[in-house]
Each structure stands twice: as C-alpha cells, then as structure tokens.
C-alpha cells in the first residue's frame, strides 16, 4: 500500500492533488460528479472584496494544446462567498479548503484576508498576485519583487491562516520574486499562474478575446511551469505548490520531483471534469511503477 500523504503548511493532505482556483468554481458542479473529499483540498474561485462581473466576452480561446482565458476574476465578492458559498460547500466538502484572494490594492487584500480569518472552513489563503487579465493590481503586484513583498507582508500581518503566494510566470526572474515573498513571511508559494497569450480571428482580423490578451494554460505550459517550480523550490525553504499543465499522475510526480510539495490541477478539470478524480485514482499505480513508496519522499528528488 503506497503512501500519498503530504504536509502543506502544517496541515496534512491525504494526497497532493488540489484543483486550481478558477477551474473548479466553489466545488458545486464537481461535487455532483464525485466525492470531493477524495481531494487533498481545492482552491476556490478567486475572490475579491467587491463583486466583479469580469471582462466582456469572448473570454475563452483555443490555444495549441492549451486554453486562453480572460475571465477577469468574476466572483460574487467575499461577503457573498462567506454568506452563501461556504455554507453550501460545507454540505459536500468536509476538509479545509484553500481560499484564493485577489485584489487591486493592498487594503483590498488585507480586508478580504481579515474576513477569511473568521472562516473555520478555510485552511490556507492563496494570494493571487499574478492574474494577467485585470488592469491595475493583479499581475502588477506579481511582476515586481518589491510589490510582491509588500502584499505578502501586509496580509501576513493580519492573517490567522497560512499564506500561500501565487506567482506569475510572466517575469524575467521568478526566483527573485519568490525569495522576496519568502523574506516577507509567506508560508508557501504556488506557481505558475497563466502565461499571457493571444489568438487572432483570421476572418474578423481581430483578437478572439475581447480583452485582446488572455492567460494561457493547459498541457502546453507544463515544461515552462516545471522549470520555474524547479528553480523556485531550489531557492526557497517554504513549501511550493506546483501547477501548470498538469493532467496526469505522471505529471504530478514530475512536479514533485522538481520540488513541489503539492500539485494544483487547472485546465485539465475543464476539458475532463473527472480529471482530478482520475489522477488521484491513478497515483498508486504510477507510484508502484516508479518504485515510489511515499510521495513525500520524492519532493525535490530530481538530482
């Protein structure tokens, strides 16, 4: 019997598989398909202080072995999430959930984190400083080491939960930003967010996405994500959550060998709603095939 347990910022996960924010809503749609308590946990839809509609459509375009999205942080706002979504979630998800938070100012991040302190369901707070689809804030914080550190320090000051900072891949030196967040007190890091991309409609001769650009994710970005996870995991001491194009149990193991303590599954959930479930079910087989007894033992095992 193989051991899939890992520890993420003091909380033990039965397995390292975590559906990623923005691809799993608040769990509702997937809870109808399988028991979400099989998951390590999941990161719910990026939440802001005020409700947001997001960008105008089209918000989605086909990449090449990936998807481009420019949703732009549509969410009902933190109060609604606490009042409606979390109680609903409680019925089908008994584990600590990861709260994903976005903001357009330091104050906004801080206010949302304060509200989440009062939510016992929330185990971790993932601070998204890397959304490429919103103007001002979002990625602006994630592409500059000073700003990244400032957000991290500010939320750490008020947070009663472990803070995991979600990093942007759209940078020259992700290690520099990772170290700045660690120094500012981050309990963990998650990477990569989507890569800024674009597609053009040849008939209309205009961008497919109303927002012109969108975040590129899916299988195609895996080698880039893996490289950044490897670089960051070797540069910091805090746990790293790897994500970016993970779609199989083999990918999960590759990410963990690169240094990931846990692994988020993103776009794969969109093209196959059972993806995270299938990956978890397949892990023991793949582990034995590669002679892995306990997943925690291979974290950063790539020599």
């Amino acid at each position, binding site marked *: 019997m193989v051991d899939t347990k890992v520890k993420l910022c003091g909380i033990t996960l039965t397995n390292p598989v975590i559906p990623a924010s*923005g*691809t*799993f*809503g608040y769990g*509702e*749609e*997937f809870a*109808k*398909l399988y028991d979400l308590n099989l998951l390590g946990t999941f990161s719910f*839809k990026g939440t802001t202080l005020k409700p947001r*509609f*997001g960008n105008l*459509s*089209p*918000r*989605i*375009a*086909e*990449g*090449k*072995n*990936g*998807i481009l*999205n420019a*949703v732009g942080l*549509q969410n009902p706002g933190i109060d609604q999430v606490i009042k409606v979504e979390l109680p609903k979630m409680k019925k089908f998800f008994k584990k600590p959930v990861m709260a994903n938070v976005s903001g357009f100012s330091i104050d906004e991040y801080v206010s949302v984190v304060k509200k989440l302190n009062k939510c016992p369901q929330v185990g971790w707070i993932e601070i998204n400083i890397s959304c490429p689809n919103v103007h001002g804030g979002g990625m602006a914080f994630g592409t500059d080491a000073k700003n990244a550190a400032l957000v991290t320090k500010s939320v750490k000051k008020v947070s009663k939960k472990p803070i995991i900072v979600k990093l942007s891949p759209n940078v020259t030196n992700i290690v520099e930003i990772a170290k700045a967040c660690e120094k500012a007190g981050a309990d963990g890091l998650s990477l990569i967010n989507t890569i800024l991309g674009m597609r053009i409609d040849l008939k209309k001769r205009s961008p*497919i996405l109303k927002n012109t650009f969108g975040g590129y994710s*899916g*299988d*195609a970005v895996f080698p880039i994500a893996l490289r950044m996870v490897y670089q960051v995991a070797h540069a910091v001491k805090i746990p790293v959550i790897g994500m970016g194009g993970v779609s199989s149990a083999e990918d999960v193991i590759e990410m963990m060998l690169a240094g990931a303590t846990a692994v988020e599954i993103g*776009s794969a*959930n*969109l*093209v*196959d*709603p*059972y993806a995270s479930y299938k990956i978890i079910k397949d892990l023991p087989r793949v582990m034995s095939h590669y002679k892995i007894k306990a997943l925690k033992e291979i974290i950063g095992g790539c020599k």
Partner: protein
Amino acid sequence: MPNMKEVILSIKENHPLTSDVYRLVLTGKHIDTMHPGQFVNLKIPGCYLRRPISICDMNKNQLTLIYKVVGKGTDKLSKLRGEINVLTNLGNGYNLAHAKKHNLLIGGGVGIPPLYFLAKELKKQKKDVTVILGFNKKNELFYVDEFKKLGVKVIVTTLDGSVGVKGLVTDAMKKLRYDYVYACGPIPMLKAVYTLAKVGEYSLEERMGCGFGACMGCTIKTEEGAKRVCKDGPVFLGKEIIW
C-alpha cells in the same frame, strides 16, 4: 434533471448535408434522455477545448447533431470516424411548458438544428407549431423536408430569394399569428425577432471553456445579473437578455 455525464459514443454517421454543414449521428448505451435546447460537448482529437453542439434529435441510444465547419476544430470533427468522447446533459433547454396555442419556432442557419428536436417534442404534445427556417441562399438549405415530415407548418426564407420568402426571418414573421416564440440563431436575428415578438425563449451562443459552469468563461450580463450561457442557459427568456 440528470447530471452531466462523460460517455464514449460510436460515430454511426458523419456526413455533409451541404458544403459545410454536417450531420453527426452518435450511438451508444446509457445515453440519458435530454431536452430540446440542451447541448453536448465533444472531445475532438487534436483540439484542447471541447466543442459544444446542441442536440438536433434524440432517440433511444442515438443522438443526432448538426454542426457547421467553421475552423480547424470542426474541420477535424468532420473527418472523425470511430469513437468520440462526449459530455452529455449540458445546459438548460427550452421550456415546453411555456408553449401556447400557436407556437412559432424561428431558426437561422446552424441555429436551426435544436428547433427540430423542439418541434418534434411539441408535436408529441399536440401543440400547433409553425417553423421559420432562415438561410442565405438555396444551396445552404438543410432539414426542410425533415421538418415537414414532423407535420409542422414550414416557412423557408432566403436572403437572395432563391427559395421561399425573400429576406430575413422577420419578414416572414409579420404575416403570422403566434402567441409564443422559440428561437435560435445569430444574435442580430434573435434581437430582431424579440423586438417584433416581445415574448419567447432564445438560445444564445458563446465561446465556452468547460461547458458545465466551472470556468465562468461564457458569462453574460442579463437583467437578472451575470449568467453562464453553458449552465444557466443556453436558452434564456427574451426579457432576461440585455439586447
């Protein structure tokens, strides 16, 4: 309503009805019964995103879809044989309970297929059904006879007048008596129809990421706030839509 389900279906038929409109007939056990206006999401090898196609007809263990080749994805689909991975039971369809005495179904181009399934179900309920099928020109016509075989009144319009009423579907509407409308087609057509009819249900199209409500990729603004075309639609009441 039954849940979304992932099924592997056999491609029984995948043939062109016109130069670029194809009929895809899928067979397999455990195909849940779906409703007119719902859609399925097809995994096409070589494409990352699935392609949503609304249901044209539904029989025991058989699903009929009609799609237009518009890009690389649908081009690949048109060449596909053997088996295909399908997510079924997606979206909310037309509400047949809203049907009145005289029901007018209006479809434009590739928006026509879901109305075939709807017309068939309304006839089962002994409802009076008139269908307006809008095309650009003669060589783009498809399914006209199939509709006639259902025993519904069929009016064809063509932009160039090569068949039936010359002009838009709305030109054919004016002369008709109806209490309720079910429509599917391009937004400008739907808007023109609603402006005249001021009633009815309209099926919208939007680029989708997942097709089952998870990614918020296809959200639109409505009178009742933000709605996901894939999960809260694709069929909306005319009065809900911000035209």
